[in-house]
């Protein structure tokens, strides 16, 4: 296994929860709880789970858009949470993010030139002028050809796919090491998804990137990722090599998730795992298994203690008493 580029230790993020007219403070939502990650360099690391499982929160934590409640994050072995102001800019240079919605992630008042050049201007204290060379290269790498046609356009003059490519060009122009891609194709038309995904794969090789690829779509995860982590309500329930996890899901939640993916072949029948509507209250700290209310295979121990995260061989980890 190659070097670990990003490592988190007991990463936890709570959001304060307020309800009612009089704003009674009802404790907090445990969005991410006690997460330990090791992301190997040069790999695509997939993060899957349903909405609200804490995937995006982890993404935001890793690029420091939000600060964790507790826990540590290390980048190349260096703790990034207590960086000085002057060191922060170096960190920003190494880590970039691609957002889900290309219609929202570009400033509508800036041209492509201004948007893409911004990281350069900030990072290298350049002036607004004279960055054409890098820009044209970045745009071309992002598949916008001929690049000079796009330089002075505004976002509203571009299609969704083109915008996402601009966003990618912007993320890559300062040659980051680690990119968080938060559902980068979910807002795009199905027809152009593959080309954007392919572009990302291509860039990974060309620029030597490491991706944290966040998605709820298992088929895309399977297409993209080397490694897969399944999250459920702020906790990691299963992790392992992509093919291993998808072929041999161990956690009941992962099994339910995989059974929900439609199979294009009408002849194949798969047993669908139906989950009950019952939900665990995320405003309480996890004392029992989060999946307990929905689990088909639960046993009394599941209610008493939270399952340990165990290696089941082939670097396949799972947190379940039943396995």
């Amino acid at each position, binding site marked *: 296994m190659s070097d670990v580029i990003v490592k988190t230790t007991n990463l936890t993020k709570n959001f304060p929860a307020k309800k009612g007219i009089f704003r009674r403070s009802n404790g907090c939502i445990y969005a991410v709880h006690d997460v330990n990650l090791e992301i190997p360099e040069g790999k695509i690391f997939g993060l899957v789970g349903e909405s609200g499982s804490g995937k995006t929160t982890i993404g935001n934590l890793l690029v420091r858009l939000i600060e964790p409640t507790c826990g540590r994050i290390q980048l190349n072995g260096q703790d990034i949470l207590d960086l000085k102001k002057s060191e922060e800019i170096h960190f920003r240079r190494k880590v970039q*993010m691609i957002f889900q919605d290309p219609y929202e*992630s570009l400033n509508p008042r*800036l041209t492509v030139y201004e948007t893409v050049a*911004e990281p350069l201007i900030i990072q290298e204290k350049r002036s607004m002028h004279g960055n054409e060379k890098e820009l044209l290269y970045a745009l071309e790498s992002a598949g916008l050809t001929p690049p000079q046609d796009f330089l002075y356009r505004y976002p509203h003059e571009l299609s969704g796919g083109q915008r996402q490519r601009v966003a990618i060009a912007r993320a890559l122009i*300062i040659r980051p090491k680690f990119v968080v891609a938060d559902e980068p194709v979910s807002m795009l038309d199905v027809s152009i998804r593959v080309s954007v995904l392919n572009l990302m794969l291509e860039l990974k090789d060309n620029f030597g990137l490491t991706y944290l690829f966040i998605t709820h779509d298992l088929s895309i995860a399977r297409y993209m990722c080397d490694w897969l982590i399944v999250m459920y309500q702020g906790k990691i329930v299963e992790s392992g090599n992509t093919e291993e996890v998808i072929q041999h899901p161990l956690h009941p939640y992962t099994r339910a998730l995989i059974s929900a993916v439609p199979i294009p072949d009408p002849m194949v029948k798969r047993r669908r795992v139906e989950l009950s509507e019952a939900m665990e209250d995320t405003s309480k700290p996890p004392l029992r298994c989060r999946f307990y209310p929905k689990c088909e295979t639960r046993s009394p121990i599941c209610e008493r203690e939270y399952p340990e995260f165990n290696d089941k061989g082939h670097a396949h980890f799972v947190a379940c008493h039943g396995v």
Partner: protein
Amino acid sequence: MRIGTKRKFGLAHLLFKGISQEALGKIGIAIIILFGVMALVSPFVINIDPDVYDPLIGVDPLIFSSQGPTLTHPLGTDHLGRDVLSQLLKGSQIAFLVGITVGLMATLIGTAIGLISGYFRGATDSLLMRITDIILSIPSLPLLIMILCVFEHRGIWVIVMVLGLTGWPITARVIRSQTLSLRERPFVQSARVSGASDWRIILIHIAPNVLPLTFLYMTIGVTYAILTEAGLGFLGFSDPTISSWGMMLQWCFSTGHTFKALYWMIPPGLSISLLALSFYLVGYSLEREINPRLREP
């Protein structure tokens, strides 16, 4: 190299589109131009004969009481024999001066406070919003009069300053709520991921996106300034050494000519209302352009 050339999406374009597509906007612009011409013409009228047509000290030597329109005085004279028309023309200069300056000042302050308050939140926000609450919870005219009473000399610039420094709260509130929503938008987060400083985010990413709204509130601010200065004038608190429309009405009212000399009472009041209306119409048309939901299906 064309850097930052705004094609199609620039503010000027937005303005032009907003105003030209809307009949009401055109009316507004037409009225503004009319009064603009009046303001420009004013010095020429005075120059015909300053002894007669100076709005403050010129008097017609043959007229000793307020008289109706004649050829030499198309809008008649006031009780001292001063020409109403030249007062009206001079008044349009003052209305523009007060309106535009106060509108700009109030909008700039309001936008700055709204941006800072909405972006940084927390204690800064609380403090600034409490100040806003304070200004908004005191009736404006008595508040202005109280502030003006502190000054021994009420020159027009003192009035402009006081109006400008107290006219921003509504703008600040609107810009703040807009900023609160903008700061959570992915493009702002994207800039933050790129390492942009807070001020860069505010100036490059948020401010340009509240600009149309700022402009809208400026037109409202101009309306507010014109009406408020006129109100102060009517109550006798404007600069007595200039002939603003409010002061004209005050002279007419306080000397008992209100219902007697309609040629003197109608023009200033009508001008105040029309100019205020015109800026509002422009703002209204602009609002429809900014908020597409308000347009016709």
